[in-house]
């Protein structure tokens, strides 16, 4: 056995061992948005459950930003967890493609007991037709925390209506205070709070069961204008504060003092513990009523589903019954309250929790006492909570609305900034003046502009959304057909099988080529040595490339078998151009490249020239300048995401404010105008090292005599740099430019991380998708909306662009132009 074989054997055995290790039967339970404390809680509950049911529970927390990808990928892979907690839309979205089971069909005898734990109107959201594809898990409702001391000082009373709230915020603005909209800020999933009191739903099914949107309804638009006013026309410390909401709420220092803190219910538990000094200085009130006197208190929530490919469905159902039983519910609620500085409130919609016979639990829990008001609100919410079924395609259509609202937000900020500049004020001073009743005409003018923007924006996106929804409805029907005949589809011939056979034939051809001629046979060892990379290239590059080309002409959802891919001709290519998504991504990419490449080159030229000098401690200098080259992009992006925090909580803002370079803190990552520039700053910082390295190598090839000759001619350092070093580096500059363009086309990791995809619930690539370049778009289609066809079409356009760049480069090198 030669060492090579030994190595392969070791690798194979290791991989096999790992697979075997994973095969141990356990109930896999995934949960979106869970933190460290949740992991500990559900692991503990799992151990309790194991004692009676003899099933081990393995808990995995998923981040809000990418949970959809994880669930869909795991379903596509046929390796889903047994039971999972998803967003509210999960049961519908996964039910449609047959990824999760119908609880009624699977557990006809026991489902009634489970259903009885819920208020019937909460179940449609978790249904597809008559199928019950999941049950609600928890719910989030907005709460307004306000500083009673400040309110008293300003003569304000707790806001009972949205108009009250707007007025209170005006008064606070006028006095120089700020308002923090934490979760329900510019988040699209909070829109029901504004529109539902009027019975308007963003995307829904009409009476005939056809998908429709309320976007053009004047009342809907009024509610949206109201929301935009609340979000953007007041002074705010920004929305990207990395959880320092309690910090600014507790601050009394003008400039950061934020006496109104609008967030999810749970914050009170944390406030009591982190800021005991504030006890008695604040109170909480529920979300105010709309102008018609009605209110709607649901922001968002989660739901639990059981997956079709699970082998432990019965155990999963038992676990669900266990978690929704009253004693365990109490345990969960108490655990959430007892998390010290990270305490929060677990608001589940299990009706028994709020039944009169259960009052003693609330009354006898000291931690909850100051907030019994909230429990009262929950009672009302649960009793009146009304939901309706999801709409196929709403996942794809909804971002149109969020992006529109983002862009209007950016517009308002820009307008305020410009108008403020006219009066030689900062934005916050200008808004303060609004609060004091000054510049009333301008205020009205901006409000009118918002109204117009809303009207024209919705006019533009409505037909696009309707097209998406109608197409999705047809696809849904197609999915239903495939789901009904799943096993046939699974065994049918598909493109990958064909490609694999072709690859196998090519491989056989290669083997035949080697063995057919005695001359070749004599060289067997040579062929054996080059075989591994050739086979790897065939299997892992050429086969996938061919399949991608095929897929780019089909419509395919990977949760279904590949044979369900449907030939649609060039419609994907037309779609990605016509929908404007690809041109938008290319524009972003172009912008990114045009800034980062030249800037990087200019800075690198200077520093390469400087580093080329005979330096003391050269090793250290090079270490300093080259270290970004070896550090992982993700870690670096995580660091930058904190440096770029809003308000003066972020170091960069703090420095800029201190140096009086800016009047108002920049909303780096939460504004569409500055998001991509932040990504660029990171890219330039990290890319310098490699460019400097290439330039240094080039500088060392420039003969020393040239500098000396120039020195004799009396050329100073700047002239030597400009006349000798820079022209001498022409080939390197060309090379780095091409490489930079290719790199710019492929940027992904930094955008993903800076957009907070591993954290927050923003499911997009930056505000208004400002960071959506080509690869993020490819990823979005491939692993977020699961349109593998479109994704492959984007991939081929990308391939073409890179091919062109490479050919240009080869051409230039051949001609010897550089």
């Amino acid at each position, binding site marked *: 056995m030669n060492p090579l074989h030994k190595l392969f054997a070791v690798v194979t055995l290791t991989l096999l061992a790992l697979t075997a290790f994973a095969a141990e039967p356990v109930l896999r339970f995934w949960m979106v948005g869970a933190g460290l404390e949740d992991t500990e809680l559900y692991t503990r509950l799992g151990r309790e459950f194991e004692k009676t049911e003899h099933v081990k529970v393995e808990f995995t927390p998923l981040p809000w930003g990418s949970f959809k990808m994880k669930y869909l990928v795991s379903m596509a892979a046929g390796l889903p967890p047994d039971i999972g907690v998803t967003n509210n839309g999960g049961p519908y979205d996964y039910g449609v493609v047959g990824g999760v089971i119908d609880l009624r069909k699977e557990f006809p005898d026991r489902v009634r007991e489970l259903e009885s734990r819920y208020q019937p109107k909460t179940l449609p959201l978790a249904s597809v037709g008559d199928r019950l594809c999941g049950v609600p898990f928890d719910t989030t409702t907005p709460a307004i925390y306000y500083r009673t001391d400040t309110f008293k000082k300003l003569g304000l009373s707790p806001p009972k209506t949205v108009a009250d709230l707007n007025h209170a915020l005006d008064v606070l603005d006028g006095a120089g205070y700020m308002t923090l909209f934490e979760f329900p800020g510019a988040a699209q999933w909070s829109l029901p709070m504004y529109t539902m009191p009027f019975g308007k739903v963003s995307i829904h099914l009409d009476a005939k069961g056809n998908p429709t949107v309320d976007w053009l309804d004047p009342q809907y638009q009024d509610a949206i204008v109201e929301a935009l006013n609340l979000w953007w026309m007041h002074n705010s410390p920004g929305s990207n504060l990395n959880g320092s909401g*309690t910090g600014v709420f507790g601050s009394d220092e003008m400039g950061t003092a934020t006496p109104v803190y609008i967030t999810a219910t749970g914050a009170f538990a944390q406030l009591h513990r982190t800021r005991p000094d504030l006890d008695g200085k604040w109170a909480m009130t529920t979300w105010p009523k709309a102008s018609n006197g009605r209110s709607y208190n649901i922001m968002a929530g989660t739901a639990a589903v059981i997956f079709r490919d699970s082998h432990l469905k019965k155990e999963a159902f038992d676990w669900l019954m266990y978690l929704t039983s009253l004693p365990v519910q109490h345990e969960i609620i108490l655990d959430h309250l007892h998390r010290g500085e990270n305490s929060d409130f677990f608001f589940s919609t299990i009706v028994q929790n709020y039944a009169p016979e259960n009052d003693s639990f609330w009354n006898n829990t000291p931690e909850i006492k100051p907030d019994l008001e909230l429990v009262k609100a929950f009672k009302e919410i649960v009793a009146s909570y009304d939901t309706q079924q999801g709409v196929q395609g709403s996942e794809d259509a909804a971002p149109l609305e969020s992006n529109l609202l983002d862009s209007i937000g950016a517009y308002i900020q820009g307008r305020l900034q410009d108008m403020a500049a006219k009066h030689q004020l900062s934005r916050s001073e200008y808004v303060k003046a609004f609060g004091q009743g000054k510049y009333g005409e301008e205020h009205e003018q901006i409000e009118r502009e918002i109204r117009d923007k809303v009207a024209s924006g919705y006019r533009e996106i409505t037909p696009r959304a309707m097209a998406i929804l109608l197409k999705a409805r047809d696809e849904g029907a197609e999915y239903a057909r495939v789901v009904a005949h799943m096993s046939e589809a699974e065994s049918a011939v598909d493109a990958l099988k064909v490609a694999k056979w072709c690859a196998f034939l090519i491989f056989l051809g290669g083997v035949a080529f080697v063995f057919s001629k005695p001359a070749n046979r004599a060289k067997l060892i040579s062929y054996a040595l080059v075989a591994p990379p050739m086979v790897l290239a065939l299997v892992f590059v050429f086969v996938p490339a061919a399949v991608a080309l095929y897929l780019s002409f089909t419509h395919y959802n990977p949760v279904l078998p*590949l044979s369900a891919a449907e030939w649609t001709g060039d419609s994907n290519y037309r779609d990605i151009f016509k929908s404007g998504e690809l041109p938008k991504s290319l524009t972003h990419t172009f912008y990114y490249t045009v800034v980062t490449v030249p800037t990087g080159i200019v800075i690198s030229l200077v520093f390469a020239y400087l580093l080329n000098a005979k330096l003391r401690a050269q090793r250290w200098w090079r270490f300093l300048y080259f270290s970004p080259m070896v550090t992982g992009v993700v870690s670096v992006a995580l660091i930058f995401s904190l440096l770029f925090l809003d308000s003066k909580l972020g170091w960069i803002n703090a420095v800029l404010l201190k140096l009086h370079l800016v009047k108002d803190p920049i909303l780096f990552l939460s504004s569409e105008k500055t998001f991509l520039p932040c990504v660029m700053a990171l890219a330039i910082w990290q890319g310098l090292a490699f460019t400097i390295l290439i330039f240094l190598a080039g500088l060392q090839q420039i003969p020393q005599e040239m500098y000396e000759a120039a020195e004799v001619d009396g050329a100073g350092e700047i002239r030597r740099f400009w006349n000798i070093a820079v022209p001498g580096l022409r080939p390197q500059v060309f090379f780095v430019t091409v490489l930079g363009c290719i790199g710019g086309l492929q940027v992904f990791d930094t955008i993903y991380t800076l957009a907070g995809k591993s954290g927050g619930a923003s499911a997009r690539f930056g505000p208004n998708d400002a960071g959506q370049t080509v690869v993020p778009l490819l990823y979005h289609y491939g692993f977020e909306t699961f349109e593998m066809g479109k994704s492959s079409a984007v991939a081929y356009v990308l391939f073409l662009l890179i091919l062109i760049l490479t050919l240009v480069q080869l051409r230039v090198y051949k001609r010897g132009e550089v």
Partner: protein
Amino acid sequence: MRRTRGEMFRTYLLLSLGGVLMAFPFYFMIITSFKPKAEVQQVTPTFFPHHWTVEPYQELARDGKVYQAAANSVIIAMLSTIGTMFVCTLAGYAFAKHRFAGRDFFFVVLLATMMIPGAVLLIPSFLLFRDLGWLDTWAPLIVPGLGGAFGVFLARQFISSIPDSLIESARLEGASELRIIFRIIFPLSKALLATLGILSFLGSWNSFLGPLIILLTESRYTLPLVVALLQGRFADRQNVEMAGAMVSIIPVLILFFFFQRQVVASLANTGLKE
């Protein structure tokens, strides 16, 4: 080149200014990772910790995921590195020193794979791995990259410069191919092996998109995945997030400091790539 004293002063000044900007993010990471929670939540940030604490690292240990992921990443990177060194050197040797029918054709076909960007293969590779039952295993992170075209290209370039006479005389003495490979090629290719090793180690250690899509079970996650996840898991705890970044960055930086010359030379090689 010679520079006057004034010019040297200016050089050091500019380099120091640039150095401050280059080191700034690292400084932030180190400082923040030793701050207590109360201090990172303060409204006015402190540029130097008032209280030093290792609490964030203890929190990380309580979660346990980062350290496990670090171990996973080490295993994956080691397997990729060793595998790449073997596969690329052997193939590079054959391409450089053997004569066989179809050699140039094979080499061109292999180089052609460099034209296809990884992103193009994302979707179909995913489907292929699913078909092979490789999803949620480490195989897709190790196997496809073993015989990368660029590595083979580097190996061929390097081994071409080993004199034929050495190999010929060994052959005349009756040495088998294996003997030639292990007694002549490998010992003479230390710089090549270092380059292949360093490039493949860094590539594997820092790769993100592949593991993001392929790995489903948390206990198999790699370090970049878990570091990215800190954003959600420790949403309001900058100090813990930065402690996680430290775990992923510092070991590599230390290695880089000691093997700076080799690493820089290796990375400069990627300049040949296009």
